[in-house]
Protein backbone atom coordinates (compact mmCIF):
# COMPACT_ATOMS: atom_id res chain seq x y z
CA UNK A 1 0.00 0.00 0.00
CA UNK A 2 2.91 2.32 0.57
CA UNK A 3 4.32 2.19 -2.93
CA UNK A 4 2.93 4.67 -5.51
CA UNK A 5 3.79 4.08 -9.11
CA UNK A 6 2.81 6.00 -12.25
CA UNK A 7 0.11 3.49 -13.33
CA UNK A 8 -1.77 3.58 -9.94
CA UNK A 9 -4.58 6.21 -9.62
CA UNK A 10 -3.70 9.22 -7.51
CA UNK A 11 -5.66 12.10 -5.97
CA UNK A 12 -9.16 12.78 -7.44
CA UNK A 13 -9.52 15.90 -9.54
CA UNK A 14 -13.07 15.69 -10.99
CA UNK A 15 -15.51 18.25 -12.45
CA UNK A 16 -18.33 19.00 -9.95
CA UNK A 17 -21.99 18.40 -10.94
CA UNK A 18 -23.53 21.60 -12.35
CA UNK A 19 -26.62 23.08 -10.70
CA UNK A 20 -28.23 25.45 -13.22
CA UNK A 21 -31.48 25.54 -11.16
CA UNK A 22 -29.63 27.12 -8.26
CA UNK A 23 -28.38 29.93 -10.45
CA UNK A 24 -31.88 30.64 -11.73
CA UNK A 25 -33.18 30.73 -8.14
CA UNK A 26 -30.42 33.13 -7.08
CA UNK A 27 -31.25 35.40 -10.04
CA UNK A 28 -34.99 35.46 -9.16
CA UNK A 29 -34.25 36.19 -5.50
CA UNK A 30 -31.80 38.90 -6.57
CA UNK A 31 -34.47 40.65 -8.63
CA UNK A 32 -37.01 40.48 -5.77
CA UNK A 33 -34.51 41.90 -3.26
CA UNK A 34 -33.65 44.68 -5.72
CA UNK A 35 -37.36 45.52 -6.03
CA UNK A 36 -37.70 45.74 -2.26
CA UNK A 37 -34.59 47.91 -1.87
CA UNK A 38 -35.81 50.06 -4.74
CA UNK A 39 -39.11 50.57 -2.95
CA UNK A 40 -37.35 51.47 0.31
CA UNK A 41 -35.10 54.01 -1.43
CA UNK A 42 -37.48 55.63 -3.89
CA UNK A 43 -40.77 55.62 -1.96
CA UNK A 44 -40.42 58.15 0.83
CA UNK A 45 -43.76 57.04 2.28
CA UNK A 46 -41.89 54.24 4.07
CA UNK A 47 -40.56 56.99 6.35
CA UNK A 48 -38.36 54.80 8.59
CA UNK A 49 -37.52 57.71 10.87
CA UNK A 50 -41.20 58.12 11.69
CA UNK A 51 -41.55 54.34 12.10
CA UNK A 52 -38.88 54.36 14.82
CA UNK A 53 -40.60 57.35 16.43
CA UNK A 54 -43.88 55.45 16.58
CA UNK A 55 -42.09 52.43 18.05
CA UNK A 56 -40.91 54.60 20.94
CA UNK A 57 -44.25 56.26 21.69
CA UNK A 58 -45.38 55.87 25.28
CA UNK A 59 -48.78 54.59 24.20
CA UNK A 60 -47.20 52.01 21.88
CA UNK A 61 -44.72 50.77 24.51
CA UNK A 62 -47.53 50.66 27.04
CA UNK A 63 -49.65 48.66 24.59
CA UNK A 64 -46.73 46.29 24.02
CA UNK A 65 -46.18 45.62 27.75
CA UNK A 66 -49.66 45.92 29.23
CA UNK A 67 -51.52 44.41 26.30
CA UNK A 68 -49.47 42.17 24.04
CA UNK A 69 -46.98 40.78 26.57
CA UNK A 70 -49.23 40.79 29.65
CA UNK A 71 -52.05 39.24 27.59
CA UNK A 72 -49.69 36.53 26.33
CA UNK A 73 -48.48 35.80 29.86
CA UNK A 74 -52.04 35.54 31.24
CA UNK A 75 -53.25 33.43 28.32
CA UNK A 76 -50.29 31.04 28.37
CA UNK A 77 -50.36 30.69 32.18
CA UNK A 78 -54.03 29.70 32.02
CA UNK A 79 -53.42 27.59 28.92
CA UNK A 80 -50.51 25.57 30.31
CA UNK A 81 -51.94 24.94 33.80
CA UNK A 82 -55.45 24.15 32.56
CA UNK A 83 -54.02 22.17 29.67
CA UNK A 84 -52.01 19.89 31.98
CA UNK A 85 -55.08 19.46 34.21
CA UNK A 86 -57.20 18.57 31.17
CA UNK A 87 -54.54 16.12 29.96
CA UNK A 88 -54.48 14.36 33.34
CA UNK A 89 -58.32 14.34 33.41
CA UNK A 90 -58.31 12.84 29.92
CA UNK A 91 -56.18 9.92 31.15
CA UNK A 92 -58.21 9.47 34.35
CA UNK A 93 -60.08 6.29 35.25
CA UNK A 94 -63.13 8.40 36.04
CA UNK A 95 -65.39 8.50 32.94
CA UNK A 96 -66.95 11.85 33.95
CA UNK A 97 -63.55 13.56 34.09
CA UNK A 98 -62.55 11.96 30.79
CA UNK A 99 -65.79 13.12 29.17
CA UNK A 100 -65.52 16.68 30.49
CA UNK A 101 -61.98 16.94 29.16
CA UNK A 102 -63.04 15.64 25.76
CA UNK A 103 -66.03 18.00 25.47
CA UNK A 104 -63.92 20.96 26.59
CA UNK A 105 -61.27 20.28 23.96
CA UNK A 106 -63.90 19.71 21.29
CA UNK A 107 -65.70 22.98 22.10
CA UNK A 108 -62.75 25.33 22.38
CA UNK A 109 -60.93 23.94 19.36
CA UNK A 110 -63.98 24.60 17.22
CA UNK A 111 -64.42 28.29 18.18
CA UNK A 112 -62.23 30.85 16.36
CA UNK A 113 -60.34 33.06 18.79
CA UNK A 114 -61.72 36.25 17.27
CA UNK A 115 -65.27 34.98 17.87
CA UNK A 116 -64.37 33.80 21.37
CA UNK A 117 -63.03 37.24 22.30
CA UNK A 118 -66.23 38.95 21.12
CA UNK A 119 -68.30 36.36 22.91
CA UNK A 120 -66.50 36.96 26.19
CA UNK A 121 -66.47 40.75 26.09
CA UNK A 122 -69.45 41.81 24.02
CA UNK A 123 -71.68 38.75 24.41
CA UNK A 124 -71.37 38.40 28.18
CA UNK A 125 -71.60 42.17 28.49
CA UNK A 126 -74.95 42.02 26.66
CA UNK A 127 -76.21 39.33 29.06
CA UNK A 128 -74.88 40.82 32.30
CA UNK A 129 -74.10 44.44 31.66
CA UNK A 130 -73.77 45.77 35.18
CA UNK A 131 -74.53 42.86 37.40
CA UNK A 132 -72.95 39.43 37.31
CA UNK A 133 -74.13 37.61 40.42
CA UNK A 134 -71.91 34.96 41.92
CA UNK A 135 -73.92 32.59 44.07
CA UNK A 136 -75.93 29.38 44.18
CA UNK A 137 -77.87 28.80 40.92
CA UNK A 138 -81.69 29.12 41.02
CA UNK A 139 -81.60 30.71 44.45
CA UNK A 140 -81.52 34.22 45.79
CA UNK A 141 -78.25 33.61 47.62
CA UNK A 142 -75.47 35.78 46.17
CA UNK A 143 -71.97 36.02 47.51
CA UNK A 144 -70.89 38.87 45.27
CA UNK A 145 -72.05 40.99 42.39
CA UNK A 146 -69.55 41.93 39.74
CA UNK A 147 -69.84 45.01 37.56
CA UNK A 148 -69.01 43.24 34.33
CA UNK A 149 -68.88 46.39 32.22
CA UNK A 150 -65.79 47.45 34.17
CA UNK A 151 -64.05 44.21 33.19
CA UNK A 152 -65.36 43.30 29.77
CA UNK A 153 -62.74 45.15 27.74
CA UNK A 154 -59.68 44.60 29.91
CA UNK A 155 -56.56 42.59 29.12
CA UNK A 156 -57.58 40.21 31.90
CA UNK A 157 -60.76 39.15 30.08
CA UNK A 158 -58.87 38.99 26.77
CA UNK A 159 -56.18 36.85 28.38
CA UNK A 160 -58.77 34.55 29.95
CA UNK A 161 -60.59 34.08 26.62
CA UNK A 162 -57.38 33.28 24.74
CA UNK A 163 -56.14 31.13 27.66
CA UNK A 164 -59.28 28.98 27.67
CA UNK A 165 -58.83 28.45 23.94
CA UNK A 166 -55.13 27.71 24.39
CA UNK A 167 -55.84 25.11 27.11
CA UNK A 168 -57.60 22.95 24.52
CA UNK A 169 -54.43 22.82 22.42
CA UNK A 170 -52.09 22.54 25.41
CA UNK A 171 -54.12 19.55 26.67
CA UNK A 172 -53.21 17.58 23.57
CA UNK A 173 -49.55 18.67 23.78
CA UNK A 174 -49.34 17.78 27.48
CA UNK A 175 -51.05 14.43 26.88
CA UNK A 176 -48.56 13.54 24.14
CA UNK A 177 -45.76 14.52 26.52
CA UNK A 178 -47.06 12.45 29.43
CA UNK A 179 -47.66 9.43 27.17
CA UNK A 180 -44.10 9.73 25.84
CA UNK A 181 -42.71 8.89 29.30
CA UNK A 182 -42.07 5.16 29.72
CA UNK A 183 -44.52 3.45 32.12
CA UNK A 184 -41.54 1.99 33.96
CA UNK A 185 -40.74 5.47 35.26
CA UNK A 186 -44.01 5.76 37.18
CA UNK A 187 -43.63 2.16 38.37
CA UNK A 188 -40.12 2.82 39.66
CA UNK A 189 -41.37 5.88 41.54
CA UNK A 190 -44.32 3.94 42.97
CA UNK A 191 -42.05 1.09 43.99
CA UNK A 192 -40.04 3.64 46.01
CA UNK A 193 -43.21 4.57 47.87
CA UNK A 194 -44.08 7.79 46.04
CA UNK A 195 -47.76 8.72 46.00
CA UNK A 196 -49.37 9.23 42.56
CA UNK A 197 -49.43 13.05 42.73
CA UNK A 198 -45.76 13.29 43.60
CA UNK A 199 -44.88 10.70 40.95
CA UNK A 200 -46.59 12.89 38.36
CA UNK A 201 -44.98 16.13 39.56
CA UNK A 202 -41.42 14.93 40.24
CA UNK A 203 -40.89 12.08 37.81
CA UNK A 204 -43.35 12.05 34.91
CA UNK A 205 -43.97 15.75 34.16
CA UNK A 206 -40.28 16.82 34.19
CA UNK A 207 -39.57 14.13 31.60
CA UNK A 208 -42.70 14.98 29.64
CA UNK A 209 -41.42 18.57 29.48
CA UNK A 210 -38.80 17.50 26.94
CA UNK A 211 -41.63 16.69 24.56
CA UNK A 212 -43.94 19.49 25.77
CA UNK A 213 -41.54 22.47 25.58
CA UNK A 214 -40.89 22.76 21.82
CA UNK A 215 -44.57 22.88 20.77
CA UNK A 216 -45.37 25.11 23.77
CA UNK A 217 -42.74 27.57 22.54
CA UNK A 218 -44.49 27.62 19.19
CA UNK A 219 -47.83 28.14 20.93
CA UNK A 220 -46.40 31.06 22.92
CA UNK A 221 -45.09 32.74 19.79
CA UNK A 222 -48.46 32.19 18.12
CA UNK A 223 -50.15 33.69 21.19
CA UNK A 224 -48.09 36.90 20.96
CA UNK A 225 -49.49 37.32 17.48
CA UNK A 226 -53.03 36.36 18.49
CA UNK A 227 -53.18 39.20 21.03
CA UNK A 228 -53.62 41.44 17.97
CA UNK A 229 -57.17 40.02 17.93
CA UNK A 230 -57.91 41.82 21.23
CA UNK A 231 -59.78 44.50 19.28
CA UNK A 232 -62.61 41.94 18.91
CA UNK A 233 -63.18 42.45 22.65
CA UNK A 234 -62.72 46.25 22.30
CA UNK A 235 -59.39 45.97 24.11
CA UNK A 236 -57.30 48.87 22.80
CA UNK A 237 -54.29 48.70 25.12
CA UNK A 238 -52.38 46.44 22.76
CA UNK A 239 -49.44 46.86 20.38
CA UNK A 240 -51.13 46.54 16.98
CA UNK A 241 -54.03 48.86 17.80
CA UNK A 242 -51.81 51.50 19.40
CA UNK A 243 -49.19 51.53 16.64
CA UNK A 244 -51.66 51.67 13.74
CA UNK A 245 -53.84 54.17 15.60
CA UNK A 246 -50.86 56.48 16.03
CA UNK A 247 -49.84 55.98 12.40
CA UNK A 248 -53.25 56.63 10.90
CA UNK A 249 -53.79 59.74 13.06
CA UNK A 250 -50.65 61.20 11.45
CA UNK A 251 -51.63 59.82 8.00
CA UNK A 252 -48.54 57.58 8.17
CA UNK A 253 -50.26 54.24 7.55
CA UNK A 254 -47.24 52.15 6.58
CA UNK A 255 -44.93 53.49 9.34
CA UNK A 256 -47.66 52.59 11.85
CA UNK A 257 -47.89 49.06 10.50
CA UNK A 258 -44.11 48.71 10.32
CA UNK A 259 -43.73 49.89 13.94
CA UNK A 260 -45.98 47.02 15.03
CA UNK A 261 -44.24 44.57 12.66
CA UNK A 262 -40.77 45.39 13.98
CA UNK A 263 -41.90 45.05 17.59
CA UNK A 264 -43.45 41.63 16.83
CA UNK A 265 -40.15 40.58 15.20
CA UNK A 266 -38.15 41.66 18.26
CA UNK A 267 -40.45 39.94 20.78
CA UNK A 268 -40.63 36.70 18.80
CA UNK A 269 -36.84 36.62 18.31
CA UNK A 270 -36.35 36.87 22.08
CA UNK A 271 -38.92 34.11 22.64
CA UNK A 272 -37.18 31.81 20.15
CA UNK A 273 -33.88 32.28 22.01
CA UNK A 274 -35.63 31.52 25.30
CA UNK A 275 -37.20 28.42 23.80
CA UNK A 276 -33.87 26.97 22.69
CA UNK A 277 -32.51 27.54 26.21
CA UNK A 278 -35.50 25.75 27.74
CA UNK A 279 -35.10 22.83 25.34
CA UNK A 280 -31.51 22.40 26.42
CA UNK A 281 -32.51 22.60 30.11
CA UNK A 282 -35.22 19.93 29.89
CA UNK A 283 -33.12 17.81 27.55
CA UNK A 284 -30.47 17.21 30.22
CA UNK A 285 -29.65 13.56 30.70
CA UNK A 286 -30.40 12.88 27.05
CA UNK A 287 -28.10 13.08 24.05
CA UNK A 288 -24.58 14.48 24.18
CA UNK A 289 -23.20 15.50 27.56
CA UNK A 290 -23.48 19.22 28.25
CA UNK A 291 -20.21 21.05 28.96
CA UNK A 292 -21.00 21.83 32.60
CA UNK A 293 -21.64 18.15 33.36
CA UNK A 294 -18.42 17.11 31.65
CA UNK A 295 -16.59 19.66 33.78
CA UNK A 296 -18.22 18.30 36.96
CA UNK A 297 -17.41 14.73 35.98
CA UNK A 298 -13.72 15.48 35.49
CA UNK A 299 -13.60 17.38 38.80
CA UNK A 300 -15.14 14.45 40.65
CA UNK A 301 -12.86 12.04 38.82
CA UNK A 302 -9.86 14.08 40.00
CA UNK A 303 -10.96 13.72 43.62
CA UNK A 304 -10.64 9.96 43.57
Amino acid at each position, binding site marked *: *MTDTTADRPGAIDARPVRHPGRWVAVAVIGVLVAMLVNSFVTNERWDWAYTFQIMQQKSVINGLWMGTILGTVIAMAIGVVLGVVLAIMRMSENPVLRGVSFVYTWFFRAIPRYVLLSLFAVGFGYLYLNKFDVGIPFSSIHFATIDYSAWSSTVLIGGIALGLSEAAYMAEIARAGILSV*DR*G*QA*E*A*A*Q*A*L*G*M*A*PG*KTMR*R*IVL*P*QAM*RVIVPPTGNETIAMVKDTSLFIAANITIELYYQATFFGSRAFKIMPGLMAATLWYLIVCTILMLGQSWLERY*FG*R*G*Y*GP*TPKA*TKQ*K*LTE*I*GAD*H
Partner: protein
Amino acid sequence: MPATSDAPLVHAVNVTKSFHGNEVLKGIDLDVRTGEVVVLLGPSGSGKTTFLRCINQLETIDGGRIWVDGDLMGYDDRGGTLHRLTDKRIAAQRRDIGMCFQRFNLFPHKTVLENVVEAPVQVKGVDRRTAEARAHELLEQVGLQDKPAAYPSQLSGGQQQRVAIARALAMEPKLMLFDEPTSALDPELVGEVLKVMRDLAQKGMTMIVVTHEMGFAREVADRVVFMDGGVVVEEGPPGQVIGNPQHGRTRAFLSRMRQEEQAHAQAVTEAVSAGVAALDDAPKEP
Protein backbone atom coordinates in the same frame (compact mmCIF):
# COMPACT_ATOMS: atom_id res chain seq x y z
CA MET B 1 -52.15 -12.20 60.88
CA PRO B 2 -50.30 -11.27 64.05
CA ALA B 3 -46.72 -10.10 63.56
CA THR B 4 -44.70 -12.35 65.83
CA SER B 5 -40.96 -12.75 65.72
CA ASP B 6 -41.03 -16.17 64.03
CA ALA B 7 -43.68 -15.11 61.49
CA PRO B 8 -42.50 -15.03 57.88
CA LEU B 9 -41.68 -11.60 56.42
CA VAL B 10 -43.70 -12.40 53.32
CA HIS B 11 -46.78 -14.57 53.73
CA ALA B 12 -48.73 -15.15 50.52
CA VAL B 13 -51.78 -17.41 50.52
CA ASN B 14 -53.73 -18.62 47.48
CA VAL B 15 -52.86 -15.58 45.33
CA THR B 16 -54.75 -15.45 42.02
CA LYS B 17 -54.52 -12.93 39.21
CA SER B 18 -56.08 -12.77 35.73
CA PHE B 19 -55.39 -10.48 32.81
CA HIS B 20 -58.43 -10.14 30.50
CA GLY B 21 -59.82 -13.52 31.53
CA ASN B 22 -56.44 -15.22 31.24
CA GLU B 23 -55.53 -16.65 34.64
CA VAL B 24 -51.83 -15.98 35.17
CA LEU B 25 -51.61 -16.91 38.86
CA LYS B 26 -53.69 -19.90 40.00
CA GLY B 27 -53.33 -19.87 43.76
CA ILE B 28 -49.75 -19.19 44.81
CA ASP B 29 -48.65 -19.90 48.38
CA LEU B 30 -45.25 -18.63 49.46
CA ASP B 31 -43.61 -17.80 52.77
CA VAL B 32 -40.29 -15.99 52.94
CA ARG B 33 -38.51 -15.67 56.26
CA THR B 34 -36.40 -12.68 57.25
CA GLY B 35 -32.88 -12.98 55.80
CA GLU B 36 -33.88 -15.62 53.30
CA VAL B 37 -32.97 -15.44 49.60
CA VAL B 38 -35.63 -17.03 47.41
CA VAL B 39 -35.13 -17.47 43.67
CA LEU B 40 -38.21 -17.85 41.48
CA LEU B 41 -37.49 -20.00 38.46
CA GLY B 42 -39.75 -20.90 35.58
CA PRO B 43 -40.37 -20.58 31.88
CA SER B 44 -41.56 -17.23 30.54
CA GLY B 45 -45.30 -16.85 31.07
CA SER B 46 -45.19 -18.95 34.24
CA GLY B 47 -46.35 -15.96 36.30
CA LYS B 48 -43.19 -15.41 38.36
CA THR B 49 -42.77 -11.74 37.38
CA THR B 50 -46.50 -11.11 37.87
CA PHE B 51 -46.32 -12.64 41.35
CA LEU B 52 -43.31 -10.46 42.20
CA ARG B 53 -45.21 -7.36 41.03
CA CYS B 54 -48.22 -8.41 43.13
CA ILE B 55 -46.09 -8.39 46.30
CA ASN B 56 -45.53 -4.64 46.11
CA GLN B 57 -48.88 -4.01 44.43
CA LEU B 58 -47.76 -2.93 41.00
CA GLU B 59 -50.51 -5.41 40.11
CA THR B 60 -53.65 -5.80 42.20
CA ILE B 61 -54.51 -9.39 43.04
CA ASP B 62 -57.92 -10.92 42.34
CA GLY B 63 -57.89 -13.45 45.16
CA GLY B 64 -55.88 -14.64 48.14
CA ARG B 65 -53.95 -12.46 50.55
CA ILE B 66 -50.39 -11.17 50.79
CA TRP B 67 -48.93 -10.02 54.09
CA VAL B 68 -45.57 -8.29 54.27
CA ASP B 69 -44.16 -7.88 57.78
CA GLY B 70 -47.62 -8.54 59.19
CA ASP B 71 -49.36 -5.88 57.03
CA LEU B 72 -52.10 -7.06 54.71
CA MET B 73 -51.14 -5.56 51.36
CA GLY B 74 -53.67 -3.25 49.71
CA TYR B 75 -56.55 -3.74 52.14
CA ASP B 76 -57.72 -2.97 55.60
CA ASP B 77 -59.38 -5.96 57.26
CA ARG B 78 -62.12 -4.50 59.47
CA GLY B 79 -63.78 -7.45 61.17
CA GLY B 80 -63.75 -9.69 58.13
CA THR B 81 -64.73 -6.98 55.63
CA LEU B 82 -61.93 -5.81 53.35
CA HIS B 83 -61.65 -2.10 52.64
CA ARG B 84 -59.41 -1.02 49.77
CA LEU B 85 -56.60 1.24 50.96
CA THR B 86 -56.14 4.73 49.51
CA ASP B 87 -53.29 5.34 47.05
CA LYS B 88 -51.40 7.17 49.79
CA ARG B 89 -51.56 4.24 52.19
CA ILE B 90 -50.57 1.81 49.43
CA ALA B 91 -47.59 4.06 48.70
CA ALA B 92 -46.70 3.93 52.40
CA GLN B 93 -46.83 0.10 52.34
CA ARG B 94 -44.36 0.06 49.44
CA ARG B 95 -41.74 2.11 51.32
CA ASP B 96 -40.24 -0.92 53.03
CA ILE B 97 -40.06 -2.98 49.84
CA GLY B 98 -37.28 -2.23 47.37
CA MET B 99 -37.60 -3.28 43.77
CA CYS B 100 -35.21 -3.59 40.83
CA PHE B 101 -36.54 -3.89 37.31
CA GLN B 102 -35.37 -5.70 34.23
CA ARG B 103 -35.00 -2.37 32.40
CA PHE B 104 -33.51 -0.50 35.43
CA ASN B 105 -35.99 2.40 35.16
CA LEU B 106 -33.58 4.98 36.51
CA PHE B 107 -34.87 8.54 36.29
CA PRO B 108 -33.06 9.81 33.17
CA HIS B 109 -33.50 13.50 34.01
CA LYS B 110 -31.69 13.12 37.33
CA THR B 111 -28.05 12.41 38.07
CA VAL B 112 -26.97 9.20 39.80
CA LEU B 113 -26.85 10.99 43.17
CA GLU B 114 -30.26 12.61 42.62
CA ASN B 115 -31.72 9.23 41.69
CA VAL B 116 -30.54 7.72 44.97
CA VAL B 117 -31.53 10.72 47.10
CA GLU B 118 -34.97 11.28 45.54
CA ALA B 119 -37.07 8.83 47.56
CA PRO B 120 -35.54 9.32 51.02
CA VAL B 121 -35.95 13.10 50.69
CA GLN B 122 -39.32 13.19 48.94
CA VAL B 123 -41.03 10.19 50.56
CA LYS B 124 -39.43 9.84 54.00
CA GLY B 125 -38.60 13.52 54.47
CA VAL B 126 -34.96 12.80 55.27
CA ASP B 127 -32.79 15.92 55.38
CA ARG B 128 -30.98 16.28 52.03
CA ARG B 129 -27.48 16.41 53.54
CA THR B 130 -28.03 13.18 55.48
CA ALA B 131 -29.55 11.51 52.44
CA GLU B 132 -26.59 12.51 50.25
CA ALA B 133 -24.07 11.21 52.76
CA ARG B 134 -25.94 7.89 52.86
CA ALA B 135 -26.19 7.87 49.04
CA HIS B 136 -22.40 8.18 48.74
CA GLU B 137 -22.02 5.18 51.07
CA LEU B 138 -24.48 3.16 49.01
CA LEU B 139 -22.76 4.10 45.74
CA GLU B 140 -19.51 2.88 47.24
CA GLN B 141 -21.22 -0.36 48.25
CA VAL B 142 -22.24 -0.97 44.61
CA GLY B 143 -18.83 0.18 43.32
CA LEU B 144 -19.96 3.45 41.74
CA GLN B 145 -18.48 6.00 44.13
CA ASP B 146 -16.94 7.86 41.19
CA LYS B 147 -20.22 8.39 39.30
CA PRO B 148 -22.54 10.57 41.46
CA ALA B 149 -22.73 13.39 38.88
CA ALA B 150 -23.24 11.18 35.83
CA TYR B 151 -26.61 10.89 34.13
CA PRO B 152 -27.99 7.36 33.60
CA SER B 153 -27.55 7.67 29.81
CA GLN B 154 -23.80 7.98 30.38
CA LEU B 155 -23.61 4.62 32.19
CA SER B 156 -23.47 1.04 30.96
CA GLY B 157 -26.41 -1.27 31.65
CA GLY B 158 -24.56 -2.98 34.49
CA GLN B 159 -23.75 0.35 36.10
CA GLN B 160 -27.35 1.50 35.72
CA GLN B 161 -28.66 -1.62 37.42
CA ARG B 162 -26.22 -1.14 40.28
CA VAL B 163 -27.44 2.47 40.70
CA ALA B 164 -31.00 1.08 40.71
CA ILE B 165 -30.01 -1.27 43.55
CA ALA B 166 -28.47 1.63 45.49
CA ARG B 167 -31.62 3.69 44.85
CA ALA B 168 -33.80 0.93 46.29
CA LEU B 169 -31.48 0.41 49.27
CA ALA B 170 -31.64 4.13 50.10
CA MET B 171 -35.14 3.55 51.49
CA GLU B 172 -33.69 1.00 53.97
CA PRO B 173 -36.08 -1.72 52.78
CA LYS B 174 -36.85 -4.89 54.73
CA LEU B 175 -37.34 -6.80 51.50
CA MET B 176 -35.78 -6.53 48.05
CA LEU B 177 -37.54 -7.73 44.91
CA PHE B 178 -35.48 -8.35 41.77
CA ASP B 179 -37.34 -8.77 38.48
CA GLU B 180 -34.90 -10.40 36.03
CA PRO B 181 -32.19 -7.87 36.95
CA THR B 182 -29.61 -9.18 34.47
CA SER B 183 -31.82 -10.16 31.51
CA ALA B 184 -31.32 -6.87 29.67
CA LEU B 185 -27.55 -6.86 30.15
CA ASP B 186 -24.76 -7.81 27.78
CA PRO B 187 -23.17 -11.08 29.01
CA GLU B 188 -19.96 -9.40 30.17
CA LEU B 189 -21.94 -7.02 32.45
CA VAL B 190 -24.00 -9.69 34.25
CA GLY B 191 -21.25 -10.59 36.71
CA GLU B 192 -20.90 -7.14 38.27
CA VAL B 193 -24.63 -6.97 39.07
CA LEU B 194 -24.73 -10.52 40.47
CA LYS B 195 -21.75 -9.71 42.67
CA VAL B 196 -23.58 -6.75 44.24
CA MET B 197 -26.63 -8.96 44.81
CA ARG B 198 -24.49 -11.69 46.34
CA ASP B 199 -22.91 -9.16 48.74
CA LEU B 200 -26.39 -7.97 49.65
CA ALA B 201 -27.51 -11.53 50.39
CA GLN B 202 -24.46 -12.08 52.56
CA LYS B 203 -25.35 -8.97 54.57
CA GLY B 204 -28.63 -10.66 55.46
CA MET B 205 -31.05 -8.86 53.14
CA THR B 206 -34.30 -10.69 52.51
CA MET B 207 -34.54 -11.10 48.74
CA ILE B 208 -36.96 -12.54 46.21
CA VAL B 209 -35.24 -12.85 42.84
CA VAL B 210 -36.75 -13.73 39.48
CA THR B 211 -33.84 -14.79 37.29
CA HIS B 212 -32.59 -17.25 34.70
CA GLU B 213 -29.08 -17.18 36.15
CA MET B 214 -28.76 -20.82 37.34
CA GLY B 215 -25.32 -20.22 38.82
CA PHE B 216 -26.69 -17.45 41.04
CA ALA B 217 -29.62 -19.63 42.10
CA ARG B 218 -27.31 -22.53 42.99
CA GLU B 219 -24.80 -20.44 44.95
CA VAL B 220 -26.83 -17.71 46.63
CA ALA B 221 -30.41 -18.95 47.02
CA ASP B 222 -31.56 -20.49 50.29
CA ARG B 223 -34.59 -21.80 48.49
CA VAL B 224 -35.59 -22.18 44.84
CA VAL B 225 -39.24 -22.02 43.85
CA PHE B 226 -40.09 -23.46 40.45
CA MET B 227 -43.26 -22.03 38.89
CA ASP B 228 -45.04 -23.11 35.73
CA GLY B 229 -48.48 -22.23 34.37
CA GLY B 230 -49.34 -20.02 37.33
CA VAL B 231 -48.70 -22.59 40.07
CA VAL B 232 -45.72 -23.52 42.26
CA VAL B 233 -44.57 -26.88 40.90
CA GLU B 234 -41.89 -27.57 43.45
CA GLU B 235 -39.67 -25.78 45.90
CA GLY B 236 -36.73 -26.54 48.13
CA PRO B 237 -33.02 -25.94 48.55
CA PRO B 238 -31.22 -25.30 45.23
CA GLY B 239 -29.32 -28.57 45.46
CA GLN B 240 -32.63 -30.42 45.49
CA VAL B 241 -34.69 -28.42 42.94
CA ILE B 242 -31.88 -27.80 40.46
CA GLY B 243 -29.73 -30.83 41.30
CA ASN B 244 -32.42 -33.45 41.72
CA PRO B 245 -35.79 -32.17 40.45
CA GLN B 246 -38.81 -34.34 41.29
CA HIS B 247 -41.25 -33.10 38.64
CA GLY B 248 -41.15 -33.66 34.90
CA ARG B 249 -41.88 -30.01 34.20
CA THR B 250 -38.94 -28.88 36.32
CA ARG B 251 -36.64 -31.39 34.64
CA ALA B 252 -37.81 -30.30 31.17
CA PHE B 253 -37.23 -26.63 32.02
CA LEU B 254 -33.80 -27.24 33.52
CA SER B 255 -32.60 -29.38 30.62
CA ARG B 256 -33.83 -26.71 28.19
CA MET B 257 -31.95 -24.06 30.18
CA ARG B 258 -28.82 -26.23 30.11
CA GLN B 259 -29.14 -26.78 26.37
CA GLU B 260 -29.52 -23.05 25.83
CA GLU B 261 -26.49 -22.35 27.97
CA GLN B 262 -24.48 -24.97 26.10
CA ALA B 263 -25.70 -23.78 22.71
CA HIS B 264 -24.76 -20.26 23.70
CA ALA B 265 -21.32 -21.32 24.88
CA GLN B 266 -20.91 -23.45 21.74
CA ALA B 267 -21.87 -20.52 19.53
CA VAL B 268 -19.41 -18.24 21.29
CA THR B 269 -16.62 -20.82 20.99
CA GLU B 270 -17.40 -21.40 17.30
CA ALA B 271 -17.53 -17.69 16.56
CA VAL B 272 -14.22 -17.13 18.31
CA SER B 273 -12.49 -20.05 16.59
CA ALA B 274 -13.98 -19.00 13.24
CA GLY B 275 -12.63 -15.53 13.84
CA VAL B 276 -9.21 -16.91 14.73
CA ALA B 277 -9.28 -19.18 11.67
CA ALA B 278 -10.23 -16.21 9.47
CA LEU B 279 -7.32 -14.29 10.89
CA ASP B 280 -5.00 -17.24 10.28
CA ASP B 281 -6.17 -17.57 6.69
CA ALA B 282 -5.89 -13.90 5.92
CA PRO B 283 -3.10 -13.10 3.46
CA LYS B 284 -0.24 -11.58 5.35
CA GLU B 285 1.04 -8.20 4.25
CA PRO B 286 4.59 -8.55 3.00
